[in-house]
């Protein structure tokens, strides 16, 4: 299903499912439902590239990231890291895997232990893997602090004594300590001020050039993703709906959801913003507890037909696209097509109070 096109693939997810059970009862907890957080994702990450993952809140981006980092056991599917399936790894192999894959977290306040000194936090990877002790660890930690633009003399300070941007740099230093091959960034800048965002993103890009890192970069800010990513995957309700090179996706999205998402991004130029057509979708994101049949997007899609209700579209290259431009849609958006004026050919329920219900 996924086409690698001869590229050096570092990670590939094959049909990954992650469901969270909802249980009820005090002693005998009975599963009454499950949240389909990640529901059949195929994805490849090539060595040295940045793969951006975008989508609304609750679409499963962060859960997917945690599955890729082996923090959540997957419900079904395989995740291959350098050809080895991490979902069935032994504890020892998993520990070795953790040296190669690191995470940078969203919340610069929550991701650092407030009761420990910065030097000890950044030195943690060395302590856990028994790589460096005492003076050697300290000098390595100070090198890392310098690398990410922190004052090495602040080794003995507590996280509370740093600003949000500095804390995120601490998180980055910790992630770099073991010289990982892959870094999964889970919304690394969304909790920061815009001016600090640029600093942190540029730091990440510089480090990538310097150290040859591979990133999986999760964000909901489309312009940030566009700036950092070589390829972008768009997620909706636990699925990847479109996966393409960044400029291709931003130039001409093929999936109606991707098109709507991109049309909602703010445009800096007011003249262009005037010309841009907003695609307003009907209704809300359905509950991931009971996702829609067929194409997940059919209850809100302006191009929905009867087939979308029953047939689940595959994530494949569509006619006229590059081989690695994958779209999961029966009726992809054509070049120059105006989605804003289209109406679905099926009944759709709007949850917005003022709008009249769409007629079949």
């Amino acid at each position: 299903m996924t086409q690698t096109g001869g590229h050096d693939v570092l990670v590939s997810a094959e049909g990954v499912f992650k469901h969270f059970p909802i249980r009820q009862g005090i002693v005998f907890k009975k599963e009454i439902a499950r949240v389909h957080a990640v529901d059949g994702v195929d994805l490849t990450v090539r060595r040295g590239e940045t793969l951006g993952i975008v989508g609304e809140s609750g679409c499963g981006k962060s859960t997917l990231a945690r599955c890729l980092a082996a923090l959540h056991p997957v419900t079904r599917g395989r995740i291959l890291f350098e050809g080895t399936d991490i979902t069935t790894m032994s504890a020892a192999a998993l520990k070795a895997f953790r040296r190669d894959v690191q995470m940078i977290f969203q919340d610069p306040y929550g991701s650092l232990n407030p009761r420990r000194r910065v030097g000890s936090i950044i030195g943690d990877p060395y302590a856990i893997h028994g790589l460096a002790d005492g003076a050697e660890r300290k000098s390595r930690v100070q090198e890392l602090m310098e690398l990410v633009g922190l004052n090495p003399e602040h080794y003995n300070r507590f996280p509370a004594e740093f600003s949000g941007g500095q804390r995120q740099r601490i998180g980055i230093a910790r992630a770099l300590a073991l010289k990982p091959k892959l870094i999964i960034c889970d919304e690394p800048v969304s909790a920061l001020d815009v001016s600090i965002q640029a600093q942190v993103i540029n730091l990440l890009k510089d480090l990538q050039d310097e150290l040859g890192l591979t990133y999986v970069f999760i964000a909901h800010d489309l312009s940030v993703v566009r700036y950092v990513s070589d390829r972008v995957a768009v997620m909706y309700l636990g699925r990847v709906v479109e996966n393409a090179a960044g400029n291709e996706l931003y130039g001409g999205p093929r999936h109606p959801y991707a098109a709507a998402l991109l049309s909602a991004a703010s445009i800096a130029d007011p003249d262009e913003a005037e010309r841009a057509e907003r695609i307003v979708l009907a209704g809300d994101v359905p509950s991931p507890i009971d996702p829609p049949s067929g194409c997940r997007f059919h209850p809100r899609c302006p191009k929905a037909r009867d087939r979308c209700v029953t047939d689940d579209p595959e994530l494949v290259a569509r006619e006229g696209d590059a081989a690695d431009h994958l779209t999961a849609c029966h009726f992809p958006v054509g070049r120059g097509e105006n989605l804003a004026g289209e109406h679905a050919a099926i009944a759709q329920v709007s949850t917005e109070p003022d709008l009249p219900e769409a007629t079949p």
Partner: protein
Amino acid sequence: MTSLSELEPEIVPADAAEQRVRGRSPLQLAWARFRGDKVALAFLVILVLIVVFALMAPLWASWTGHPYAATFPKTGLNASGQPIGPSKDFWLGADQLGRDVLVRASYGARISLLVGVAASALASLVGVVVGVLAGYVGGALDGVLARVMDITLALPYLLIAITLAVTFQVQSVAGSLTMTIAVIAFFSFAATGRIIRGQVMSIKQKEFIEAARSLGASRWRIMFVDVLPNLVAQITVLASLLIPTSIVFESTLSFLGVGVRPPMPSWGAMLGEGSEVFQTAWWLLVVPAVLLLLTTLSFNLLGDAIRDAMDPRADRQSGGK
């Protein structure tokens, strides 16, 4: 110009020392806040005096010439056999057997402080271990440990303590002391354990725990290195508040005659014995009662002060200083 260059070496180091921001640990900050609490400092002094009073027990005995278990029917009791009140020989009076109340209260302070601190330490240790395991490991282990704690809290502790004392008939002082400490710890650990369990469950959701997991840290390392340091404040407060509870618990047991065995004095036992004749000999109740009150009050206020000092947010809510 020469005067300036002469001054320079004096000014520069002072300036540099001021500019260097020292990273103060949470404990240093807590101590700084604690020092600002005048009431707590006053009760800390009272507590220190009580500890000194307890440590001086053998000295009181040798100065007055009244060992704690010795009876003095000739000097301690008046002609009609009633205990004499505070006087030159018996500074705080004598009890109905003619024993020195001052000396006995001093030995009683040793028992109370020992039982209070030891039972609190034991209960806190067990409570923290159980709470951290239940909260962090979760699953079936949590189910078992949480139910055990619920059951412990629901047990009628006095009935069980009396039953244990009667069943085992411990006669030695050391044996009864150990038994008392164990009984108190057994009935106190669950309160600590439940609070710690809840704290751990909330800490477990923090991203820094996930970060430690993604670094490859083992379960045990995460519990010790990442979870425990975040519990230091709670543990300190809970343990310090458990001391007065344990002291009162010990007094209750001794009052009922199932605590520390006679002739070893204990405040609870003194209250129990004194209550029989308090109409004629008020000092038999007042001395141990005041000591008990002061000790528990000091520990409670100190516990509150430690909580305020360790949790600056609570301080701000109450208006701060």
